[in-house]
Each structure stands twice: as structure tokens, then as C-alpha cells.
């Protein structure tokens, strides 16, 4: 039993107040943790540059319409960064936090749980922006950046990031072991990467494969961001595709939110 005379005074009945500084500190901590994760750093910062190196060396010419191959590939590499961050990075981070008990520790903190999710989004957007700026900087120095409609390009790539994050959050909340989430995430990544035109142009696919890959959530992102990068106007069917993607993202986030909430009913 405790000896009260040895113990320092701690108030009883009047708990400390919650501080709003916590969200900023949470973002700082998540940023530091991201920077210390070698795999996350490689796939976000290095992998896009490796892709650029291969594309830049292999495709130096232009297509029949006179568009440089490098200008076709830059938006696709940017889309790849988004898929990497969301489908692999977010899913694995959430699954790891859930399995190791880190999420439970955050649940006990005197802050709303959405602070944790928001910090993930803020750090993800920040890392995406840094990676994209580095990529565009190098492209600009070596080849020259085209980027004819920067606002549209930014909006479409951010939508791509949102879709990837939503898929990542959903995957991360599946009641499966971390290893299974890693395998599932890698599978989804390659389907989205290869089947969206980010690796190979979908125009080169046979009709049946082009039809199937049209429902790949990243297909309209890759098509629309390429159009925005090259200064083409978006076709109506692409605008509809992007609209449906917004709805799809909202639905995924809601499903993930409910799955996360169900954790309480275990």
C-alpha cells in the first residue's frame, strides 16, 4: 500500500485540460516517424526518381503527335507517388499501428481520434508535395517542365492522392494481420499502377483490357492529369469519371470510418 507522505501532490477530481497544441505536435511526430522509415522514404522520394531515370533514358523521343514521351510520363510518375503513399504507405502504417497497439494508445489520449487520422493526411500531403516538387524540379532542370494547366493538374493529382488514401485507410482497417495487409496492399498497388496507364499507356492495351482497366480508380486520374499537364481540355466522360471518383472516395472513407469505429465493439 502506498505511503502518502512519500508522494508528491497530484490533484484529484479536477483533471488537466486538453491542449490544442497537441495536433501540431502529433503532425511533427508523424513527420519524424515517416522520415525515419526507410521503406516509406525510398518509395516516396527515391522510387519516382528511379522511374524518371529509366523513362528519361529509354524514351528520349516524341510520339506521332509530337508530344515528348517525357511529358507523357511525368504526370504518370506523379500519380504513382500518390498510389505509393496511399495504398502502400497509409495502409501499412495503419495496420502496423493497429497490430502493435499504438492505435490503442492514441485512443486513450485525451484528444479526438480524428486528430490521428488528420495528422496522417497532413503528413501524407506534405510528403507528396515534397516528392512531386523534387521530381518536377529535376525534370525542369534536365528536360524542361511543360505543366500547361498547373491548377487543374494539382487538383486532379490531389484527388488521386485522396482516392489512394481512402483505399489505404480501408485496407489498413481490415481485420487482417500486418503481413496480409502488406501483401494485399502490394497487390492493389500493382493493379492500380499497371492497370491505370501509369506504367504502360492504356491505348496500347487490347480493347477488352482497356474496358476492364477503365474502372481502375487511378485511370481517370492518370488520364486527366496527363491532359492537364499537356494543356488539353478534359473530355466530358473524364469529368464524369472524376465526379464518380469523388463519390467513390467519400464512400470508402465512410466505410473505413465505420470499420474503425467497430473496433469498439470487439
Amino acid at each position, binding site marked *: *500500500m*502506498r505511503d502518502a507522505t512519500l508522494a508528491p501532490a497530484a490533484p*484529484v*477530481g479536477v*483533471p488537466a485540460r*486538453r491542449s490544442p497544441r497537441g495536433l501540431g505536435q*502529433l503532425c511533427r*511526430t508523424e513527420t519524424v516517424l515517416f522520415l525515419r522509415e526507410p521503406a516509406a522514404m525510398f518509395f516516396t522520394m527515391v522510387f519516382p526518381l528511379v522511374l524518371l531515370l529509366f523513362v528519361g533514358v529509354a524514351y528520349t523521343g516524341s510520339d506521332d503527335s509530337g508530344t515528348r514521351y517525357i511529358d507523357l510520363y511525368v504526370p504518370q510518375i506523379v500519380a504513382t507517388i500518390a498510389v505509393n503513399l496511399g495504398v502502400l504507405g497509409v495502409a501499412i502504417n495503419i495496420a502496423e499501428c493497429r497490430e502493435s497497439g*499504438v492505435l490503442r494508445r492514441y485512443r486513450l489520449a485525451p484528444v479526438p481520434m480524428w486528430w490521428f487520422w488528420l495528422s496522417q493526411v497532413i503528413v501524407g500531403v506534405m510528403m507528396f508535395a515534397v516528392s512531386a516538387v523534387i521530381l518536377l524540379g529535376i525534370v525542369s532542370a534536365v528536360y524542361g517542365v511543360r505543366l500547361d494547366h498547373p491548377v487543374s493538374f494539382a487538383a486532379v493529382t490531389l484527388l488521386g492522392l485522396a482516392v489512394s488514401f481512402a483505399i489505404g485507410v480501408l485496407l489498413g482497417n481490415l481485420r487482417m494481420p500486418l503481413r496480409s495487409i502488406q501483401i494485399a496492399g502490394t497487390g492493389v498497388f500493382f493493379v492500380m499502377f499497371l492497370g491505370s496507364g501509369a506504367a504502360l499507356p492504356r491505348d496500347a492495351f487490347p480493347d477488352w483490357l482497356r474496358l476492364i482497366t477503365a474502372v481502375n480508380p487511378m485511370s481517370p486520374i492518370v488520364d486527366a492529369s496527363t491532359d492537364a499537364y499537356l494543356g488539353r481540355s478534359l473530355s466530358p466522360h473524364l469529368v464524369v469519371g472524376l465526379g464518380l471518383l469523388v463519390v467513390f472516395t467519400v464512400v470508402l472513407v465512410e466505410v473505413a470510418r465505420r470499420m474503425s469505429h467497430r473496433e469498439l465493439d470487439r
Partner: protein
Amino acid sequence: MTAVLVVDDLRKSYPGRTVLDGVTLRVHEGETIGLVGPNGAGKTTLLECVEGIRRADSGSVTIAGVTASAASAVFHLTFGAQLQESSLPNRLRVGEAMRLFAAFYDEPWDIDDLLERIDLREQRRTMYGKLSGGQKRRLTLALALLGRPPMVLLDEPTTGLDPHARLELWGVLERLTSGRTAILLATHDMHEAQERCDRIYVLDQARMVADGPVSRLLDEAGLVTKIRLPHRPWMDEVLRAVPGWTASRVVAATHYAYGGAAFAGDAAAALRQHLTARSDEHGTPQLLAGITTGPADLEDLYLIRTGRQYA
């Protein structure tokens, strides 16, 4: 005394299995309360329902006047908890973890002072994954106490720790809590519970089967004295003739006989007399040499009340 934690008629069940069946408990200001029970009795579920990280089917939980149904972030200001299964990111440094969790409060404990008190000042830049088991427990305990909560919930905080680390953890807890802080401790360590706790709740098969100070519980159950002797099939019959005998349990051919105050005095002598008669009859004089007598403790109460025996 003011009740800091009030749990009323808490119920939780899963398909085909009731985990908590109308559990009620109180923890008052300055009390350290032990929660004991066999594996699967519902201790962790009870703590998690109290902490708000598991939803109860019905019942109510109030800590320091704030009900669990309030906004969870506000409710979580009322207590600090050390979970059985929780962790921190392996690449997070000790100092960073302290700064992160301190930022959640307006007036947290001073980090340098707290690191000093938990003896982790030297490890300030060490990553969580590199800490020893005892250091991890001390750190997570300190994080639970950063906001100086009126209530502390501990789920098997010393399990797996060596005796040194165990003592250090209790030392930290004593240094970081005042005589007014209420503590609810779920544990499998009966000696720790008996030594540290003012009162005990025994949870078994989803219900509270006993609660009160250990000495009173032992007295009420007639478990004051324990006599240990080699078991024979006729032992119960002999013991029933000994004044004050209340209960027995048999583990691996050893018979543990318990009795109340009346059993304490001449019971051993009376038992020897009875056994001498039976021993002569059955030719087992070595029985007498195997008798030892001592006080019963919480572990005995636990084993009798929960119907479990040592493996």
C-alpha cells in the same frame, strides 16, 4: 471518501458468451484496488469498457464525475491507463514520446522532472524499440500520468518483469501519484495484490464473486490458517472431524486444508491425532512428517473462490 471511479451494472456479451454480467465496483480517492480473476474472467474487458476503448452493452461508468458517454476526449482527461497490449512506434525516441503526449494537456507534468523520476533521463534520445521491458513499462506508466489524472488504470503492469524491474515500477508509481490518486490494478500476481492493494475485487465467470480488504475476505471465507499435507483419498473425512476446518483443495497429491480462527489454534495437533489413527490403520506414518502450517493468503482465497487450481 469520494468515489473517483463508479461502475454500475456493466454488461458485455458476444454471441454465445457473456463476458461481463452486471459488474459493479467503486474506487475511492486514495485507494489502490486490485482486480483479480482467472484468464478469461473479464478483467481486461472490464478495464477496456471503463477506458472507453470497448463499448459495453449496458451499464454506466463515471470517473471523477465525468461519464463515459461524454465526448471521449474529455472523458480521457480523467484517467491515465497502462494497457496490457499497447505500444509506441519503435522509432520514436523517449523524449519525443514525452513531448507528444505532454502536448495533449494544458498543464502537463514537467518532462525533465518526470524523466528523472522514472529514471530514464539518460535514455531521452533512445528509441522506444531499443528500451528494455522494464524501461518500456516505466515510460508508458509515465505517459499515463503526464496529465496528473485522479484515476489510474493498470492492466497487469508488472507481468513479465524481473523482481528488480517490478520494484522499480512500483517505486515510480509511488513517486508519481499522491495519496489521493485512485488506482485500479488488474493483476495475476496475488502477492502483489495482497501487498499493494487496500481492497480486492475477485472477478470470475463474468461476475464479481468477492470484494473487500484481503484480511476481511479471508476471515469471511474461513481462510485464516492453511495446513499443507500429503493427500490421501480419505483425507476429507479426517479433516471434517477437525474443529474449524472450512475448505480443502488438492493439487498434485498435496492436500491444502483451510480453516477459520478456530482452526488456527490446536488444529494441527488435532489433525495429527486423527492422522495418527488413520496412519496406523493404513500404514502411512510418513504423513505426519509432511505437515506444514501457515497463514492463508489471497492466492488461497482466489483458488478456492474461482474454483481453479494450480496446473
